[in-house]
């Protein structure tokens, strides 16, 4: 099959909508357009039935007890905000201490930051150099005042899969609410809210070949029942947890995306893992001084985060502009600071600047992997030939021994 350009390998950022998902959504834009909150006519009943069926699919996919535990939102950022601020507001009189990790998504970190300004105390637990959070560190951070622990299922940059079940045991034993940002891991690694003692879970459709603009928050209803203070005022939709007219086509698409994963997810993960490992092997075999960031095995099947030493990430991305990837390089952000995730894992800043994240997904092919491996190899060689650091390295000079002047 002929290659089509540009090649998309940034499936952690978002994924294309699967044609089967789009097909399932279409009737709900036009023919079945009703407001799911309209109780007085068939248009509303239709929409509500579709939403409720979707709730059940999504609930069953994550091992929840009932569809009533699914609160639909606009996406994971809203779900994270609702979970963290909603719990803090409801349980704040029990204690004002929250535990999270330094590698969480900004939606979690910045929600915590805001709570700090409101008198909460937040402990940010570091991940290890392999990108994994140690449950013992969470346990050590717990105090009498701890009301909430928030840890992601899988990291979006290095793909490390966190020990959710072990942390769930700790939080359950202490009666602390446990929130999991499950956005990146959903459908790619086992996730079961009951088996893992998860109380709240943020989900989103657009990372699993569903549409953008729709997500969900799982809110446990029994053993124990978790309460939240809604963060959006209005018509009291979603059992008062989230006001706002439901995005019916989006919700139907989300459920369809989940249905596909339920049937095909395991086989798909194996296929993607095979492509990822093929890319990794080709690059490591062809190029010296390539470092894998994150854990070698406890990582998302499609995630490959590599540092090509002595080459700057954005410079490399420019050289492979027909391939969509992302970088932990500072230059891709306005802040000029390299990835906070990589730095908090203890990566040297120069290696963070040299990192490229490949995110393989459902629609990538072996031909694409082979093309990308060859292209990246050629471009890394070219850029190293232009890099003073590579020349120093070849001459046996340790670049850490030089007194650089930061600018």
């Amino acid at each position, binding site marked *: 099959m002929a290659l089509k350009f540009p090649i998309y390998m940034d499936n952690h950022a978002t994924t294309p909508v699967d044609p089967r998902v789009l097909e399932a959504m279409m009737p709900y834009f036009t023919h079945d357009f009703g407001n799911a909150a309209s109780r007085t006519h068939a248009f509303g009943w239709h929409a509500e039935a579709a939403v409720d069926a979707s709730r059940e699919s999504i609930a069953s996919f994550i091992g929840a007890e009932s569809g009533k535990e699914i609160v639909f939102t606009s996406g994971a950022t809203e779900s994270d905000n609702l979970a963290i601020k909603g719990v803090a507001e409801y349980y704040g009189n029990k204690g004002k201490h929250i535990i999270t990790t330094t590698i969480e998504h900004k939606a979690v970190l910045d929600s915590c930051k805001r709570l700090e300004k409101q008198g909460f105390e937040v402990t940010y637990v570091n991940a290890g150099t392999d990108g994994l959070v140690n449950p013992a560190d969470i346990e050590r951070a717990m105090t009498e005042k701890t009301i909430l622990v928030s840890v992601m299922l899988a990291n979006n940059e290095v793909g490390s899969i966190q020990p959710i079940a072990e942390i769930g045991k700790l939080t359950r034993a202490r009666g602390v609410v446990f929130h999991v940002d499950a956005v990146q891991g959903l459908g790619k690694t086992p996730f079961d809210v009951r088996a893992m003692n998860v109380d709240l879970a943020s989900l989103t459709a657009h990372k699993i070949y569903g549409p953008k603009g729709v997500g969900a928050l799982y809110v446990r209803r029994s053993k124990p029942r978790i309460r939240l203070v809604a963060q959006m005022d209005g018509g009291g939709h979603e059992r008062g947890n989230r006001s706002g007219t439901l995005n019916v086509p989006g919700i139907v698409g989300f459920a369809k995306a989940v249905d596909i994963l339920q049937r095909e997810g395991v086989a798909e993960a194996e296929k993607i893992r095979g492509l990822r490992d093929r890319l990794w092997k080709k690059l490591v075999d062809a190029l010296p001084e390539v470092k894998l960031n994150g854990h070698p095995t406890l990582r998302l099947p499609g995630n490959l985060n590599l540092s090509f030493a*002595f*080459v*700057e990430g*954005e*410079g490399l991305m*420019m*050289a492979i502009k027909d391939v969509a990837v992302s970088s932990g*390089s*500072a*230059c891709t952000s*306005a802040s*000029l600071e*390299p990835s906070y995730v990589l730095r908090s894992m203890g990566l*040297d*800043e*120069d290696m963070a*600047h040299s990192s490229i994240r490949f995110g393989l997904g459902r629609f990538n092919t072996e031909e694409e992997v082979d093309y990308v491996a060859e292209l990246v190899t050629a471009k890394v060689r070219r850029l190293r*030939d*232009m*890099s*003073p*650091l*590579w*020349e120093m390295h070849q001459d046996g000079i340790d*670049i850490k021994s030089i007194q*650089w*002047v*930061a*600018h």
Partner: protein
Amino acid sequence: MAYSERVIEHYENPRNVGALDKNDASVGTGLVGAPACGDVMRLQIRVNESGVIEDAKFKTFGCGSAIASSSLATEWIKGKTLDEAGSIQNSQIAEELNLPPVKIHCSVLAEDAIKSAIEDYRKKRAARQSLEKGQ
């Protein structure tokens, strides 16, 4: 962020990539930036007896704008006297390459690299002259 055509042009066809012998008395070397900041430029000049830059080479670790800025810098300083080269401002480089605000620091680094190479050459020359006087 989209790159300007001029950045892409220099990035894809960089001028004067390479190295000059840093121990050569007629060569000045400037090494600026830091790996931790994501850009390092090494710019070298070869200066003739009349103080004119005869050749210039660079190697850069950095983004496309950093590579383009150093490429342009070497192109501009060739054939100039040290004083002329030393008066090149980062704003001229930024303007020529149409750099967005977030990339202005790349042009600053290129200006620093030129100045640093000139300073290195002048130091070496002064040291040599004082050595010669002493003999």
